[in-house]
C-alpha cells in the first residue's frame, strides 16, 4: 500500500502565486514588447526573455532587494520588473520615451534602476562581467554584506574579460555570483559550435571558485538553489559560478527573423511543450491543488490587462525634447553643441 503522506509544498501558496504572477508579468510584458517592435514603436535591438522567466524570478527572489546588486547583459526586461521598478517607466524606456528610466537614452538593452540595485543593461557581450566584480569589490571594500548577481549568456562565457573577472574574483574572494544563463545559443550559434567545453559551469574551477550546473526552467528548483547559493556567498564572502540550463523560446532579438538558420523549429516547439516554466508551475499547482484552472485563467487575464494598461500609459509618455540630447553626458558640464 502506498502511503498517502501529504507532500510538503516547495513554497507557500502565497509564494507560488507570486512566482506565477511574476512569470506571467514577464511573459505578457515581453509579448507586448514584440508587438511594440512590430508596430514600429520600438526600434534598434530588442531581446525578449520568453521561456527563461523562471531563472530571473528564482534568483531575484533570493536577494535582499534594495541592498544586493544585480547586473546583466542585454536580455534584461525581467529584472527591473522584478526589482521594484515602475513597469510603465520600463516600457517607456523600451519605447524611447521621456518617461523611461533613462528618459529615452538607454532603450531595451540599457535599462537601469540604480536605487533598487539594478545596474543594467550592457550591450558588449562579456564586457559587463568585470563591472559585476567591481560592484562586489566595492561592497567588500566597505565591509557591507551585499551580494552581487552577475548574469551572462553562454556566448559571453567565452569572452576573455570574463576570465579576467573570474581570476580577480577568485584571487580577492569577491562576493559575486556569475550566473551563466545557458540558453543553448550565442545569437545564432549553437553551444556545440561556440564552446570547446560545453559544460560552462566548469569555467570557475581553474580559479578556485565553487561552481555548479542547475536547472533554470523550474522556478521552484531555481529558487531553492539560488537561496542556498546567495546565503552561502553572503556568509563566506567568496565568489560562485552557476550554469543555469534554460532555453530561449524567442529568437535572439526582434530582428532574428529566420531561426531556421540555426535551429529546427520543431525542437523549439518540443521545448515549449515540455519545459515552459509557466506551464511547469501550473502543473505543480494543479497537482498539489494549490490553484484551480479557473483561478489561473483569471490571473492570466488580469495580468494581460495590466500589461495593456502599462503599454497605454507608456505610449502616452512624450518623446524627449531635442535639447535633452546634451543632458547627462557629463555630471557638471555640457558637451560642445552643434554639428
Amino acid at each position, binding site marked *: 500500500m502506498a502511503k498517502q503522506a501529504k507532500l510538503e509544498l516547495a513554497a507557500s501558496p502565497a509564494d507560488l502565486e507570486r512566482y506565477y504572477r511574476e512569470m506571467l508579468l514577464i511573459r505578457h510584458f515581453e509579448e507586448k514588447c514584440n508587438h511594440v517592435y512590430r508596430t514600429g514603436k520600438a526600434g534598434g535591438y530588442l531581446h525578449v526573455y520568453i521561456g527563461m522567466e523562471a531563472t530571473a524570478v528564482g534568483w531575484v527572489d533570493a536577494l535582499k532587494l534594495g541592498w544586493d546588486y544585480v547586473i546583466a547583459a542585454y536580455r534584461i526586461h525581467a529584472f527591473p520588473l522584478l526589482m521594484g521598478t515602475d513597469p510603465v517607466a520600463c516600457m517607456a524606456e523600451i519605447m524611447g520615451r521621456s518617461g523611461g528610466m533613462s528618459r529615452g537614452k538607454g532603450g531595451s538593452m540599457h535599462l537601469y534602476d540604480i536605487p533598487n540595485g539594478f545596474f543594467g543593461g550592457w550591450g558588449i557581450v562579456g*564586457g559587463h*562581467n568585470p563591472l559585476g566584480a567591481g560592484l562586489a569589490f566595492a561592497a567588500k571594500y566597505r565591509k557591507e554584506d551585499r551580494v552581487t548577481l552577475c548574469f551572462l549568456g553562454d556566448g559571453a562565457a567565452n569572452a576573455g574579460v570574463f576570465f579576467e573577472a573570474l*581570476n580577480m574574483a577568485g584571487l580577492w*574572494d569577491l562576493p559575486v555570483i556569475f550566473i551563466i544563463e545557458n540558453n543553448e545559443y550565442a545569437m545564432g550559434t549553437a553551444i556545440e559550435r561556440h564552446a570547446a567545453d560545453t559544460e560552462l559551469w566548469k569555467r570557475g574551477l581553474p580559479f578556485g571558485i565553487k561552481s555548479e550546473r542547475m536547472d533554470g526552467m523550474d522556478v521552484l528548483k531555481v529558487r531553492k538553489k539560488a537561496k542556498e547559493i546567495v546565503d552561502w556567498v553572503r556568509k563566506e564572502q567568496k565568489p560562485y559560478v552557476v550554469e543555469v540550463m534554460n532555453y530561449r523560446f524567442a529568437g535572439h532579438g526582434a530582428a532574428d527573423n529566420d531561426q531556421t538558420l540555426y535551429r529546427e523549429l520543431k525542437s523549439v516547439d518540443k521545448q515549449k511543450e515540455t519545459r515552459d516554466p509557466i506551464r511547469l508551475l501550473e502543473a505543480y499547482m494543479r497537482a498539489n491543488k494549490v490553484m484551480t484552472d479557473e483561478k489561473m485563467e483569471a490571473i492570466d487575464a488580469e495580468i494581460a490587462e495590466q500589461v495593456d494598461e502599462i503599454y497605454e500609459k507608456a505610449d502616452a509618455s512624450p518623446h524627449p525634447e531635442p535639447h535633452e540630447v546634451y543632458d547627462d553626458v557629463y555630471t557638471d558640464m555640457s558637451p560642445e553643441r552643434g554639428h
Partner: protein
Amino acid sequence: MPTTMTYREALRAAIVQEMDRDPDVFLMGEDIGKYKGTFRVTDGLFEKYAVDKKDWLVPPFNKNLQDGIGRRVVDTPITEPGFTGIAIGAAMVGLRPIIEMMTMSFSILALDQIINHAAKVHSMTGGQATVPLVVRGPGGAANQLSAQHSHSLEGWYAHCPGLKVVAPVTPEDAFGMLKTAVRDNNPVIFTENPGLYSMKGEVSDDPDFLVPFGKARIAREGKDLSLIAYSRMVNVSLLAAELLEKEGIDAEVVDVRSLLPLDTETIFQSVRKTNRAIVVYEDWRSGGFGAEIAARIGEECFDDLDAPVGRVGGLNVPMPYSRVLELQCIPNEQDVLDCVRKIG
C-alpha cells in the same frame, strides 16, 4: 610656501592628499604596490595604506567581511580590461578609483571598458549613475621603448564624449589637476609624458589648491606668433620660443593642458593677438588632437590669421627602437622653427 618637487613627487603628493581626505579613494594597477610602480609614482603608498599590515604580503585577501579588502593600494594581475572594469563597477557605487596604466599604450586593451562602458554610464543611465574614475599613466615616448610602448593616445580619448582628458606639463599642474581629477564625478584620462617625471618645479602646499579643467595657461607671453601645445610639447615650444627670440620673433606659448573640456577662448585670444598659430603635439601628426585645434583656429580666427595655421606632430610611423630614429619621430624645437619658416 611653495615646495620644489619633481612631477613624479607632485603626482604622489596629490594622491596622498586625496586618499587622506576621502576613504573612498583607492589605487589599482599593475605593479603599483609592492613594486612601487614602474615609474615609481606610487612609491611607499602600498605600506602606507595597508589597512591590515599583518596580511599585506600574500594573497588571497582577507576572508572575513569585517576585514574588507584589507588595503587601498591594490596590485592587480596583468589584465587591463578586467581591472578597469572592476574600477568602473566600484565607481558606479561611489568609490573613487585611481587606476594606473603601466603605460597608456596598454590602455588600448581596456578601450572597450573605457569607451564602451565608463564613458557611457552617465548617459545610458539617464544620470542615475556616475563613474568617478581616474585613469592615469605615462603617455608618449620615453627612451627607446619602441613601437608598442610609446603611444600618445590623448587624442583618441579626447574624441570621445563622456570622458575628460588632461595632459599637464608642470609639477604644479600635475598636482592640482590630479586632485581635480579625483574629485571629478566623470571618468578622467590623465596622461603623463614619461619625459616629465623627473622635471622639477614649484608646487603649492595649500591643501585646497586645485587646477580646474578647461582652462588653458599662457606659459610664455609674446606678440608675434602663438605656439599651442600640451604636455611635454609645451617645454619644446618654450625652447623654440627662446631660439626665436634671438631672431627677433616674440612667440607666445599656450599650454592647453586640458583637451576635453578645451579652452578654445584662450587659444583664440592668443591667435587674435599674434595673428599666427602653430600647434605642436607628439601624437602622430595625421588625425591627432593638434589637427582638431588647428581646425578650430581655422573656423573661428580666419580673419585674424596672417598665415596658414601650422602643425608640428610626430612622424606618421610606428615608433622605431633606434634612438636616432626615435628622436627623429618626436617633434623638437628645430621642427618648430622649420614650421615657422614654412608658414612665413
